């Protein structure tokens, strides 16, 4: 039925996560060998030598024995459970036998990756940039959306059209002079170019908030006005308390955006290791360790942990926010 079909699709859709998790727990040889799970060949130490263990068919049963002496038509094995019995002769070609595997999970990969990329530093950087930018965008976007929603500004519609136009504007056009400007005032190599522009309102957020504010009935505004409240007071005491879903949605959007942002930190931070956020940090690390897929997958997990956990905790709020503000066109 359709549920079965959908389940299959979901399994395929999410399978790269399984790849990521399993690979991050392997080590290099396991990956090259191509086994699905983190497994390594079992070995048995006998007379100071690590002997490989094979699945040997004996009298209709499968036993796991260590190969002691290789021969062409017959070989000698040691039974790990009974080494005192000495070498056992077995008829058959050892090359046709399957290697016995055991689970060998390399939890250490995470520790290695964690220390190598200095994850706590990356995490702090990312959080700082995201949170400060978040404060800035909330402060400014709420004010600007309030202006568009509640005040009789001349040419308001044209200004709003220009605002929406900036959403569509490709960033390349403004990028070069903006970069040149920040470079001239020595803000490159700092976090300032990544944070300060958000204090001047983000077109997308203003758009969402303005749509939301416009839906709010004016009666409450007017009641407050009659009680002598000024526009600022009205914003804080009337508009904002009614708008928590939209505000939370904007906050989450910005946080996710900042967490994801790769291009701007790439060009503005000039590769200074102490300042890099997670996105650039992971990329730099994987540039160096590109022959170590297990470490790369471990860093991928580190990068996605926080947003995904955040998502699961807030998914109801988040998805409702998108539906509320996204469907209402």
């Amino acid at each position, binding site marked *: 039925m359709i549920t079965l079909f959908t389940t299959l699709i979901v399994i395929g859709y999410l399978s790269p996560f399984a790849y990521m998790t399993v690979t991050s727990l392997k080590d290099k040889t396991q990956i090259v060998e191509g086994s699905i799970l983190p497994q390594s060949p079992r070995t048995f130490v006998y007379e100071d030598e690590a002997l490989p263990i094979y699945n040997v068919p004996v009298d209709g049963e499968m036993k796991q024995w260590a190969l002691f002496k290789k021969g062409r038509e017959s070989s000698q094995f040691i039974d790990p459970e009974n080494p005192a019995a000495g070498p056992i002769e077995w008829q058959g070609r050892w090359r046709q036998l399957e290697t016995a595997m055991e689970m060998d999970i390399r939890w250490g990969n995470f520790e290695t990756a964690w220390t190598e990329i200095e994850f706590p530093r990356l995490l702090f950087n990312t959080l700082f940039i995201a949170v400060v930018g978040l404060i800035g965008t909330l402060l*400014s976007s709420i004010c600007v959306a309030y202006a568009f929603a509640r005040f009789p500004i001349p040419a308001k519609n044209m200004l709003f059209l220009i605002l929406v136009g900036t959403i569509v504007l490709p960033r390349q056009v403004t*990028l070069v002079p903006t970069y040149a400007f920040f470079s001239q005032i020595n803000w490159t190599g700092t976090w300032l170019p990544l944070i300060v522009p958000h204090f001047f309102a983000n077109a997308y957020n203003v758009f969402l908030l303005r749509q939301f504010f416009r839906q709010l009935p004016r009666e409450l505004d007017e009641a407050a006005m009659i009680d002598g409240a000024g526009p600022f007071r009205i914003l804080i005491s009337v508009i904002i308390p009614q708008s928590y879903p939209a505000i939370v949605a904007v906050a989450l959007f910005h946080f996710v955006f900042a967490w994801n942002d790769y291009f701007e930190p790439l060009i503005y931070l000039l590769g200074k290791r102490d300042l890099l956020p997670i996105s650039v940090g992971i990329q730099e690390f994987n540039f160096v360790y590109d022959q170590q897929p297990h470490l790369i997958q471990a860093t991928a997990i580190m990068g996605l942990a926080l947003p995904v956990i955040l998502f699961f905790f807030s998914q109801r709020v988040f998805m409702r926010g998108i539906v509320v503000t996204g469907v209402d066109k």
Partner: protein
Amino acid sequence: MAATDKPQALYAAAQPAKAKKMSLERSQQRWGWVFLSPWIIGFIAFTLIPMTASFIFTFTNLKLADPGATEFIGLDNYRKLFNDPDLKTSLWVTLRFAVVALPLSIVIPLSMATLLNAKNLWAKRLFRTLFYMPYMVPLISVIYIFNGFLNANTGWLNMFLDSAFGIKGPDWLFDPFWIYPALFIIGIWGTGNAMLTMLASMQTVPTELYEAARVDGADSLLIFRKITLPLISPVIFYNLVLSLIGLFRYFEIPYVIKRGTGDPGNATLFYNIHFFRTAFRFQDMGYGATLAWLIFLIAMIATVLVFASAKYWVFYAGDRD
């Protein structure tokens, strides 16, 4: 005195009220400007001035390392546009990618949303969350996960193809042809948002319409084409515009996977990779600005075309004809 005094008295009495009303309006306007000011300042500082400056740059040979040595070179940068082989390559690469990517970016979330909207589906909320969740994964992680997943030898896609179908999968990441499907696959996780908005819109379609159509004998396909699609066309339009915008900004995925080299053999030399190399690696800001204005022009034309086409296929249920 009585006959002429009355109108004057009335006029005098009305004055304070009118003055109060006008000053309220004006004070409201003033407050409006106050609250609008962050955006106005930001717009001038981060959009208007840079756009003008960027336009001026296109007529110079500005190199950031030595801004003092900048000279005006007239239309040389524009002439360069016609002689730049990388430009032609990058335009072609971006175009042939777009021709498939854009429809896919609508069809895939639409299909998933339709699937999730099906009547007999169990655990819809769970599936919805599962389909949306990968959208939250940061792009960097997505890129590296798929970089491994699509690996020709150790990646699970090829291992699966081999064990389930006996097909030897292509070298997804190094073959100049197969790199494009690989890029599409990487992009699939990004359709979660579109899927959600489309699903939400589908759920607002009144079921009476479906019932009436079935009574009239319509089959599922007809219902989908004639009822569902038109009624959710605003959301489809919204997502189409977003996809278009994303297309003109397409950069991170090819850049991180191939480290900005454009391999294999220029197959990933997207427009923005060429732009980035010109402006930030070769530091040629003058020509870089020219490239920026070119893509701006193309993007504006494309956006206008899409908006103009909306008249023909986007149906707003709230409008009156």
